[in-house]
């Protein structure tokens, strides 16, 4: 049980911190993020604007709730849902042969790191699958003794 609670804490802080950090630059530069969203060519220019304005705040809120330990499973479920959408969208981008050199995952600045790391590709999909696995494990872990299972 002690091992489970430590695993929960690590997953909660890791996932929450990851998404909270990922949201910051996008919140600071929504127009630049909108350009990146549009480059994915999954939605048109106006829906891309809405995604760019709303998505970082959902990431931030879910991340913050996880880190704070409030509505943990619900926040992890939202993150898992986002990750499924990201994975499907990245697969669509790759299948259509679109070159997105900056996925916009953490930063809206032009890519300084290699494209395999910062662009849309297999590394991004693998990373999101790992995060999705972590979110699913967190949701399915039993609540530590003494805690309500609904939070």
């Amino acid at each position: 049980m002690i091992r489970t609670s430590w695993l929960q804490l690590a997953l909660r802080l890791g996932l929450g911190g990851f998404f909270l950090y990922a949201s910051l630059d996008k919140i600071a530069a929504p127009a630049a993020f909108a350009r990146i969203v549009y480059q994915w060519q999954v939605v048109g220019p106006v829906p891309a604007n809405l995604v760019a304005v709303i998505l970082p705040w959902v990431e931030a809120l879910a991340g913050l709730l996880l880190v704070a330990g409030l509505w943990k499973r619900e926040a992890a479920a939202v993150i898992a849902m986002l990750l499924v959408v990201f994975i499907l969208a990245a697969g669509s981008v790759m299948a259509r042969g679109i070159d997105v050199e900056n996925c916009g995952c953490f930063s809206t600045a032009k890519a300084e790191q290699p494209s395999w790391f910062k662009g849309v590709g297999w590394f991004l999909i693998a990373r999101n699958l790992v995060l999705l696995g972590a979110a699913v494990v967190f949701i399915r872990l039993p609540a530590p003794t003494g805690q309500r299972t609904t939070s």
Partner: protein
Amino acid sequence: MRILRASVILVAGGCLGLAWNAWSGRGFVLGQSVFVQVGDEVIEPSEAKARLDRGALFLDARPRDFWTMSRIPGALSQPEEEFDRSFAELEPKLRGTFNIVVYCSGYGCEASHVVARKLREKGIHAAILSEGWPAWTDAGYPVTGPK
């Protein structure tokens, strides 16, 4: 209860995002492409084709290698990243016409907008082909091959 809470997170995130966009001073106009700024003239491929038929001068804002491989007939290379050097070569031609259209790689490509704005700063108006090269080729309009 869980679905309700998850929905609250999504809705609250959406509201915060829209509020931030409206009042933070960092927001932008949601109802139009984020690439379009005041003063930009964006035209559809059909209008660009009509202008080509009327003798418009086309500028290719993509990297020069792309222009070398394939381009709109008669288009001159004016890459965004080599703007100053290319402009110095092309300036007499650009100042000799009022009918210029700029295009780039399309879908998320900002080069044509950047080139059009830089030209505007120099007193030259240029229209921007909406969605650029892919929109042109998808419409089945003519292209020319390697130089």
